[in-house]
């Protein structure tokens, strides 16, 4: 570069900086100083604070932070389940991002981490930034109304995500062909159930449940008057697989004598087979009087309960997914599962169901649930999710329905209608001006 070519006193960069007259782009009213006149008296401190909050530079920084957290939240899914990641990265104020994720999975350090604002914090500040910007520069013109609508729609969408994150309930309904079910299981919520059976009436069973989050720390003890024994946690596994126990320990009882549970990593969010975690745990049990009852293994993989006898009373104990009954019943008449000829690619899976709801007097014999055709009933949606197979013949013998209740489901629809109109107005206006200017030339 020939330095002498630069005029003294007017560095080239300076020239570039001052010449912004061309850059009065469409939408520029959102520029923080768009309506500021240079010779105004000093502003009120509140106005100054609002100006700061409304600054577009803040917006851009927030966008950059949002991109980073979304990107890291994607990479993190190679090692963790999608909902673990969502809660850790997006539905929180702060997150410690492991160095492995920070460095794009290039290094293997999962111990050290850097703090970073989480999704809800970034989203919250964005909301403040947006509201402040509109408060500072409210003006009703065609072009502004487009921007206003876009932003209003985005606020609705973000609120919708907050509502979904807070209130959405997901579960599964598993029905074998020819059988009926009214229970929805929630694989995300595990509990230890202690059931004292009533001799005559199932409805009078006495059931105590302990949620899994109280059982996750090794060494934790549960002592409660409602529980007939003292539980001391030895090991809790988020996911496990069973193998035969060749050399059972002396104090091992029940299932633990036959099987050994091996911890498995959490099902990764990027697993294409969409499995779910199967927790298990080893506990030491003892009576309140201090009599040792040995070490027990509870596994959510095997549906059977184990019986524990204390003072001649029998208790059924089971680690299970939370189950909730519905006031109506699904009867699976038939399940079909077709693949493309000569391949394993699923072509169609289809549940033929009879829905019986005595309370509301409903008896529909013609319900069909299949891919892209869910059933909506009583505020819940039932989607064809998967199927069960016979362990011997490997043939499909039952259906797995995804059950979702989401009070915020309408919000995205409202939001995109608003944003859509806003974008049409805004970009339509931009396009119109663009073509207009071209025509004039």
């Amino acid at each position: 570069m020939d330095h002498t070519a630069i005029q003294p006193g007017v560095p080239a960069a300076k020239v570039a900086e001052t010449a912004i007259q061309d850059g009065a782009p469409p939408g520029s009213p959102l520029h923080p100083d768009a309506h500021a006149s240079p010779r105004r008296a000093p502003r009120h401190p509140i106005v100054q604070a609002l100006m700061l909050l409304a600054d577009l530079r803040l917006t851009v920084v927030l966008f950059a932070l949002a991109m980073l957290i979304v990107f890291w939240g994607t990479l993190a899914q190679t090692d963790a389940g999608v909902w673990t990641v969502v809660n850790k990265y997006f539905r929180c104020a702060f997150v410690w991002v492991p160095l492995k994720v920070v460095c794009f999975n290039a290094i293997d350090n999962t111990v050290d981490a850097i703090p970073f604002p989480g999704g809800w914090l970034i989203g919250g500040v964005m909301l403040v930034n947006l509201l402040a910007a509109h408060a500072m520069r409210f003006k009703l013109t065609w072009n502004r109304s487009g921007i206003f609508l876009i932003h209003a729609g985005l606020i609705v969408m973000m609120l919708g995500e907050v509502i979904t994150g807070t209130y959405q309930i997901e579960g599964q309904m598993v029905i074998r062909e020819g059988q009926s079910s009214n229970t929805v299981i929630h694989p995300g919520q595990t509990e230890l159930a202690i059931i004292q059976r009533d001799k005559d009436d199932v409805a009078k069973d006495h059931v105590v449940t302990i949620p899994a989050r109280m059982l996750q720390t090794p060494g934790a003890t549960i002592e409660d008057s409602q529980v007939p024994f003292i539980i001391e946690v030895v090991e809790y596994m988020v996911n496990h697989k069973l193998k035969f126990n060749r050399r059972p320990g002396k104090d091992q009882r029940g299932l633990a004598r036959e099987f050994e549970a091996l911890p498995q990593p959490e099902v990764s969010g990027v697993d294409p087979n969409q499995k779910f975690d199967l927790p298990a745990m080893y506990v030491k049990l003892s009576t309140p009087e201090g009599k040792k009852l040995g070490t027990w293994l509870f596994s959510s993989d095997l549906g059977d309960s184990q019986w524990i006898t204390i003072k001649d009373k029998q208790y059924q104990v089971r680690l299970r997914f939370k189950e909730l009954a519905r006031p109506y019943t699904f009867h699976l008449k038939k399940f079909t599962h077709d693949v493309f000829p000569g391949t394993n690619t699923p072509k169609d899976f289809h549940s033929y169901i009879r829905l019986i709801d005595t309370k509301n007097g409903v008896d529909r014999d013609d319900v069909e649930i299949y891919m892209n055709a869910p059933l909506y009933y009583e505020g819940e949606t039932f989607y064809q999710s998967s199927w069960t197979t016979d362990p011997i013949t490997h043939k499909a013998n039952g259906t797995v329905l995804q059950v979702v209740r989401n009070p915020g489901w309408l919000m995205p629809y409202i939001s995109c209608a608003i944003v859509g109109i806003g974008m049409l107005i805004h970009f339509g206006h931009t396009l119109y001006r663009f073509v207009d200017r071209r025509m004039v030339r």
Partner: protein
Amino acid sequence: MNKTRLQQYLPALIAVGVTAIYFGINMRPRSDASGEFQYAKFGRLAVIDGGRLKPMQTVAQTKLMIVTHRSALSEKEGTFPAAKWLLDCMTTPLPGDPIFSAMFPDGAEAAVAFKQEVFRIENDQVLRLLKLTPRSGYRYSIVDIAPRYPELEQAVKEVLGDETRGIPAKDPKNYKLYDAKVAELWQHLNLYMKAAHHGTLLVIPNPDGSDQWTTFRDAHAKFGDAFDQDQLPDAPDAKAYGFYRTLLVAYQSKDKAGFNRALDSYLATSQGGGLINPTKIGVEIFFNNFAPFYLCLVVYGFVAVIAGFSWLAPAWTRQIQQGCYAAMALAFVVHISGLVLRMYLQDRLFVFVTNLYSSAVFIGLGCVFFCLIAEVFYKNGIAIVVGTTTGFCTLIIAHMLSLSGDTMEMMQAVLDTNFWLATHVTIITLGYTSAFVAGFMGIAYIFLGLFTNMLRKEGSAELTRMTYGVLCAGMFLSFVGTVLGGLWADYSWGRFWGWDPKENGALLIVIWIALILHARWGGMVKQRGIAVLSVLGIVVTSWSWFGTNFLGVGLHSYGFRQGAMMTLILIDLGFIAIAGLGLIPLEHWTSFRPHEPTPFKPTGGARPKPAGV
């Protein structure tokens, strides 16, 4: 007057003429020489492979393409259709196969398939394993491999696992290059073995007219004895078996007349009942032979180069560019027609994108389309270069992807809905397209500004306005596309937003474009800044388009490709480097260097003003 008119339109006419002739030559139907084996006719036979009913020609061509990366068979005697290779494989029985060794004694003796040099081995470790010396073309025959076959088998077992000895299979994610290449060679050898085994290709129609067809091997078990005793029942599947057996036996004994006769009489019957649509078979064969996307790739490549050099001849620049525009437009017509033919073949109206391959083809189409429009508004030729370059690059990517098999594979049940494929997928892919076009315009800005004088005066502002327009379109399309995806997800499996990697990728594009637009509205970036940010947008978009597939993820992971992650990273580093070039101080840019008269129009004194750069 007329003369000047002619002069004005001559370049465009010549360009259209040359391009049309190029397309026309490739459109001609391929026919067989009379008296020879009727390979083209053999290609018309309907089979079911990969779940789809298709002509034998597609099967032969895609499999040969996988093995050798060529769509035709090169032998010493000349070039033959892929169908010849498939026939040779079918009639060269596996060593020790009693059934087909007895059926094709001449084929077993000649063992043509063993001698064909079709298996590509480029990796030097694999070559060393097989004790082969590198040769031009890197294509080897089974005879070449055979002496070291036990060693190869051993290496394969170490990669793919061996149940009898308890060696677990390696996770494809942890493959080293050598592992991948061994597995690949094994897969290629398997294609021959499967063809010779006759146990996978569904060629025998079901007599009940359904799509549950059977293989030649199964049919032989059922009808073999009856055929020997000349007592074949009068059923479509028995007839098909008899036909294939006669045909293949004739082929292996070099009985051309018998082969052709069998073909003629069988094709005259309705082979598979109402399932087969002969028009469709014909269209697919035409489509395969025409290879429209490959031809467009060639045309775009040439146009990009010619348009790129058009500025070297200032007196002719405009005319050359008009010619380029015309050729580009004609290629665009062929490009879109190819996609329409695909829709017809797949029975999916308005569904442009069904897999990663077609997304590349469609992004190319979109890039060319956007640039054809931009050139109407800004007659400066930049859009021609950008459009044809992006079209060329995306079609190269598509071509690479097509090497791994049939590009019209069947779709998973959950994706099998034409409405959402036509709306969500099309629009989101157009969103990617805009981001790419904007990015390449950014590259054009950086290179033209750095090395030429073209961004002086109005040039800079004009190119930025073009980029800005494409970015706005990109914002609109990727937002709408992403939201439609959310609505599909809500409708199909109960959540609007699942934080799935592909969804996140789309969200990243939306945020990135929003960031650029807000930075511009806030005056934080101007013309040069928009160019640099748009180039980085290519990196973001390529992550969403390709990168998320490498995580092996969820419902969107339809396109996992071995080793491609590294390529993607390298390409992205290249774009980041270009964006870095854009940060060179403006006084070093040719276009913005002060005190230098423009070579085009010496204005004497009036210093070019880098307005709002």
